[in-house]
């Protein structure tokens, strides 16, 4: 699994271009998340793809060739945090509810809704952790699940900032001469 972070123009059609590119390169996306940044003109993407290092280089370099992609960087192998958020609706009755709550606590999940025959757990963390919780909830009956997909950030001084918005309008490179 390879993780690529990209800053893109926050406008219609950009997600389509990114998705179209991965399709063309025949790279399977495991998860792709998009969200706004502190600059409303720029969005941040985290792309997790089933490919090797070579494929990730090609994806990263090809992404950066898209006019609307400001920066793309493969952060796999760097010291980083990865987070996934899940809402899991699990069957629960009077009898097994206390036992369930115990298990959820161990995984640092939160019960955010309780109904007579079910409850909803909110859990965030690494994919492994969420998969682990899911494993122990499954025998009780998982009724519904929604996951956000991963977001990732490198640790400490390893900063991945979007380019300065003031450089808008400056061409990417000097036109090739004849």
């Amino acid at each position: 699994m390879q993780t690529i972070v990209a800053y893109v123009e926050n406008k219609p059609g950009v997600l389509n271009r990114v998705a179209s590119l991965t399709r063309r390169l025949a790279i399977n996306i495991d998860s792709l998340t998009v969200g706004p940044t502190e600059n409303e003109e720029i969005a941040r993407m985290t792309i997790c793809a089933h490919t090797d290092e070579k494929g990730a280089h090609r994806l990263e370099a090809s992404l950066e060739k898209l006019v609307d992609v400001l920066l793309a960087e493969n952060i796999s192998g760097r010291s980083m945090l990865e987070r996934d958020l899940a809402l899991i609706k699990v069957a629960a009755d009077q009898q097994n509810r206390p036992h369930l709550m115990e298990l959820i606590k161990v995984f640092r999940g939160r019960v955010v809704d309780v109904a007579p025959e079910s409850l909803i757990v909110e859990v965030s963390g690494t994919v492994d952790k969420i998969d682990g919780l899911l494993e122990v909830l499954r025998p009780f009956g998982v009724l519904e699940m929604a996951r956000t997909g991963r977001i990732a950030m490198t640790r400490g001084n390893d900063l991945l900032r979007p380019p300065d918005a003031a450089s808008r309008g400056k061409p990417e490179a000097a036109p090739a001469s004849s």
Partner: protein
Amino acid sequence: MKLTGAEILCETLTRLGVDHIFGYPGGAILPVYDALGKSKLHHILVRHEQGATHMADGYARASGGVGVAMATSGPGATNMVTGIATAMLDSSPVVCITGQVSSKLLGSDAFQEIDITGITMPITKYNVVVSKAEDIARTVREAFIIANSGRPGPVLVDITKDAQQASAEFDWDACGPQLPPKRVRNNHDQEEFDRAVELLNSAKRPVILAGRGILLSGAMQTFEQFVRTSNIPVAMTLLGIGCFPATDPMNLGMMGMHGEAWVNTAIQEADLLIAVGMRFDDRVTGDLRTYARNARKVHIEVDRAEINKNVTVDAAIVGDAGEMLANLLPHIHTRDHSAWLAHIKELRGDSAVRDIQSLPDSGHLYAAHVINDLWKVTKGGAIVATDVGQHQMWEAQYYHHNEPRTLVTSGGLGTMGFALPAAIGAKFARPDREVWAVVGDGGFQMTMSELATIVQEKLNVKIAIINNGYLGMVRQWQEFFYDKRYVATPLIAPDFVALANAFGIRGERVMCRKEVVPTIASARNSDQAVLIDFRVEQEDSVYPMVPAGAPLHEMIRRPNNPLVETASEP
């Protein structure tokens, strides 16, 4: 100053230095055509929008500038798809402007509405819909920058009809490009650079692989200096032809599937390959597992995504070919490669010294003769646009290009029907030069309607049809790999001489070898278009040939008996 969107477009194109637009009108682009009529821009009416894109492409390739094609919405736009893809695969800077239905109608399946930006997304460098008159100037200026910077490519600008009709303030200084604030990558990697220098200065059997990136960078002089300083022989890709003189003793010739045997053998025996502005396409490498196994590889390339894509390299230098070669030059030692050069000369053997010109006339007319004669008669000075197939490979082998931008050919996409419109575009780019379209009887029938464009524009383009009555390259594959089962390759053609005459173009037919030179000479004496129908040997094949997917050194060599053809010494 208040102008309509259509007038803004024409004014913007004029200020960007455009003088020719290849296009075809229609409902959704009519406001622009009305404004075109009032401008000084020269619009060339094509007969099919595919022709417009190939002409713009030919114009770009011959001039080094940006070519412009125009069409209406719907079928006008979809007809451009093949031409756009052709430009994309060969990194050709083309700007396509299409009309679109009014913005209120977008998404309603209105008459001649099609999502052309959706369709062309994977085959353009960038595309965009403009639905406001005030955005037209900025967007078109951005399109020109994107098309011709970095690794060039086609850009499509789709303008809604209401944006063409609406009025907006036009102020050139206030509508400058607003391209996204991209990170400027520092691609210089000192370690890679040092390794490249070390490899270059220690190789015993090096070969330079020269590609189109050198032409696109305009780096011909720097490249020549690099060759002289390093004293390393050069092999060319098809699209690199012209970036280094064919008649230079350091130029080995074209590599790859139909490259000469000594070129491919030299690559397979080399201990270092220096690839400049090329992308290790499967047509130049053959089987990757057995490709240049003895060689370390240095890759100089502007597009980072090409590094390690097909061939894993030992040192990559990412950047403009000319700049990167100039950076390397001061570090390169001139070394004695005489043993290696002598070995390559030996590989050439007698296949090079048998000049096809001095072969006795056997009564057969071979395409190789025709093209070699064309080279001799034109003294190598013509711009030649080729189609795709056997004649294209013979052109690459037998027309020796010494100047950049004189071979216009579809390499990456291999688009049949390219030659005639591309030659028209090249002639508009270089009216001072003699321009020939060299085309097969199959490809010619795909876009021959553009003969009418030649007549309407009173254009002096010469056309050489290499007519063998077959889709020759496919027939050749059927001969070699499908037991001579010629399915769907024999083809009927109209009487090309009568056809030319019907268009008002002089037509000539050549049946035997002794007629070749006088007919070409007589065509050259005319200041109008002339079409020559060369009836060549029907079942002739292009040699050598590396079968698709085979190792580069396992070539099918030229048969000795009958002696069909042989390479000529430039």
